[in-house]
């Protein structure tokens, strides 16, 4: 129902979003994954009609929204990366204001406020000023405010940044419920792989303004299907040994951590013998060897040579 066509945004000296084409089907839950500065927020600002693209188009049900943003704005609930609320007002007052902007009033308004507060689990604390809430509670109200006008599509820009695990779980649960039970279409932006893996059916991976991979979780992991990730733990750090091991024939990628080494190798490579042999030569003790199935994190690593989070 929603798509972008070669969406591009150029600021003075950076191309923040470069030729991005996304599709969102009704009822789908789609993840937009990428490290800091990948261009996720910029893309979302253009999709939600808050920013004009340098080129490209955004379409809702086949119609461009650039000239006439009204329809898009009606169906869209946007949860911005920042807390877009009046800090000096209570949660209730914020929701009341935003509800009235969408033409709600009287009983209907009160009911809707009750509903969204219930949804994010803040019904009993609605009278407190937003500035006195914890970060997690603010995030929840941020979501509630986007839900006031019963949107069909929920666009979320890193809604879990900087919050406690409890609030995070609550938020993720809420979103999953909205998507699974109420058929809400969700575009979920994050640089947390676990969240996207948990929530989303399909994933776009962005880096440096470009979509570098897309597909279902399985399709993406299939990129790594011919490979294995081997995690080797040592009793301590052996810099020279680690480098030596990274250079063993067949190793496609390696990551050195404190006492461990992560290697991506072609499936079926026999390298354990070589590993133990080298370890012995350096007098190193191998504590654990673990062959893992790939995660989206590994996919990203493979695609960009970098980790998602620094």
């Amino acid at each position, binding site marked *: 129902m929603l798509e972008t066509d070669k969406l591009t945004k150029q600021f003075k000296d950076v191309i923040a979003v470069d030729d991005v084409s996304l599709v969102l089907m009704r009822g789908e839950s789609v993840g937009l994954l990428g490290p800091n500065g990948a261009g996720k927020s910029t893309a979302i*600002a253009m999709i*939600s*009609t*808050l*920013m*004009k693209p340098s080129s490209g188009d955004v379409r809702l049900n086949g119609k461009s929204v650039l000239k006439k*943003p*009204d329809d898009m*704005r*009606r169906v*869209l609930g*946007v949860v*911005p990366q*920042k*807390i*877009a*609320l*009046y*800090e*000096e*007002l209570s949660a209730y*007052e914020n929701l009341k*204001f*935003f509800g*009235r*902007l*969408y033409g709600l009033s009287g009983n209907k308004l009160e009911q809707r406020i009750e509903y969204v507060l219930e949804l994010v689990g803040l019904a009993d604390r609605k009278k407190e*000023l937003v500035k006195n809430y914890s970060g997690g509670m603010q995030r929840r109200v941020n979501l509630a*405010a986007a839900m006031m*006008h019963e949107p069909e599509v929920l666009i979320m820009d890193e809604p879990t940044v900087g919050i406690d695990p409890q609030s995070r779980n609550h938020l993720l649960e809420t979103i999953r419920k909205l998507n699974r039970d109420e058929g809400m279409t969700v575009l979920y932006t994050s640089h947390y792989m676990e969240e996207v893996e948990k929530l989303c059916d399909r994933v776009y991976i962005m880096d440096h303004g470009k979509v570098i991979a897309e597909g279902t979780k399985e399709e993406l992991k299939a990129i790594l299907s011919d490979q294995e990730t081997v995690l080797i733990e040592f009793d301590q750090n052996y810099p020279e040994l680690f480098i030596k091991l990274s250079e063993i024939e067949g190793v496609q990628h390696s990551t050195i951590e404190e006492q461990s080494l992560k290697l991506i190798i072609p499936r079926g490579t026999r390298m354990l013998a070589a590993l133990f042999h080298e370890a012995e030569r350096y007098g190193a003790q191998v504590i654990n060897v673990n062959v893992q199935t790939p995660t989206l994190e590994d996919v990203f690593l493979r695609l960009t040579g970098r980790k998602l989070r620094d």
Partner: protein
Amino acid sequence: MGAFLIKDIMLLLRDRSELLILLAMPFLLIAILGFSLRGIFSGDLEALEMDIALVSEENEAQAVASIQNEIEEMGLPPEQAQALTQAAEAASPQTMLVSLFEDESLSELITIERMDRQQAQQSLDEETVDAVITLPEGFTQKSLKNMLFGSKEGSELELLAADLSSPQTDVLDSILNEFVRTVNFEASISRLSGQDSAVEVSGGIETITAREPITSFQYYTIGMAVMFVLFVGSTIAGQANLEQKQMVFDRIRLSNRSPLLYLSSKAIAASAIVTVQLALLFILSALLFQTFAADSWAFWSGIAIISITLAFSVGCLAALMVAITLRLESDAVPAIFSGGVISLMAFVGGSFMPLDGMPEMLRAIGNWTPNGAALSAYFSWLLEPDLGQLTEPLMRIGIVAVVFLLLALALFPRKGGAA
């Protein structure tokens, strides 16, 4: 619109520090300036009260007699000689000075007591008198000669004050100067034209007390009121900046509401706040400092008309500031405005002191600031409650307001600013 307005007003009520600046601060300044500068505005009669010792170092009767002798020895025709003798008696400067202070307009303020030099000095030291006027030897004679024969030799008197820099001393000094000038020069003129010099003297002093019948409290209530309403402009623009920064402005844009509703709400909220602000300041000042006679409906309706016009123009000013702030996506405008422009406008608008002595240019600019124009409207209403006199300053406020409004509409980023 209702939703916007309720939100804007609520935000302001929650902001304690802004409220303090908008309401408590002007009131504090009215109190401080009103009390400390009481004497400058001579309408404050009780503040000018003072006790004066008059020391005469000569024998007045003797001096008059000696002048009369001189007249007789001049060998004038008898009628003229008699007229001059009588004039010498009537125009005796010491008597004139005393009767000047006993005159109706001054006797309420100044009590004068004859003392000898020692006694006077002691009283001054003990602060039972505020000033000592000394008429030195020969004062009467010189003055009379000057008045009657037009001699060139002037007479002098001496003023000794406990506090040289006090406003009372200033006033007394100017009264005495006027007096000395009168006995030395103007009296000679009046001799020629045959007028009664005593009338001239009191006439000269009358102008001193009647020059500015506006009290310091009236002055500063109005001065601070028209200054502090300007802060509403930066407060409102500051709010808009915060809304943009915290991205609630984006939420508002997403709601499909016309951004013009948002802008109008800001203007109306500003006007409403200014109205409340002015009402509070005037009423509190009237109640606590007896600044205005609180019982005249006619008077208050004039004040209300001016206030509402001013509120409207500040509303338009706020809209302009909001428009620029959103366009620049920065809080520079409200910051610069409250950090300097307001003081400048208040100064050229005459909020701190009367602009009587200032260059014409400055006064012309001041007259076109909303605060300056409102200030002169309030003063003119205070001096003479005549609606006709208000038309011109109110027109100026209105014209400026419309200019602000048009600029605001031109600069307001209708689509919300994002490039």
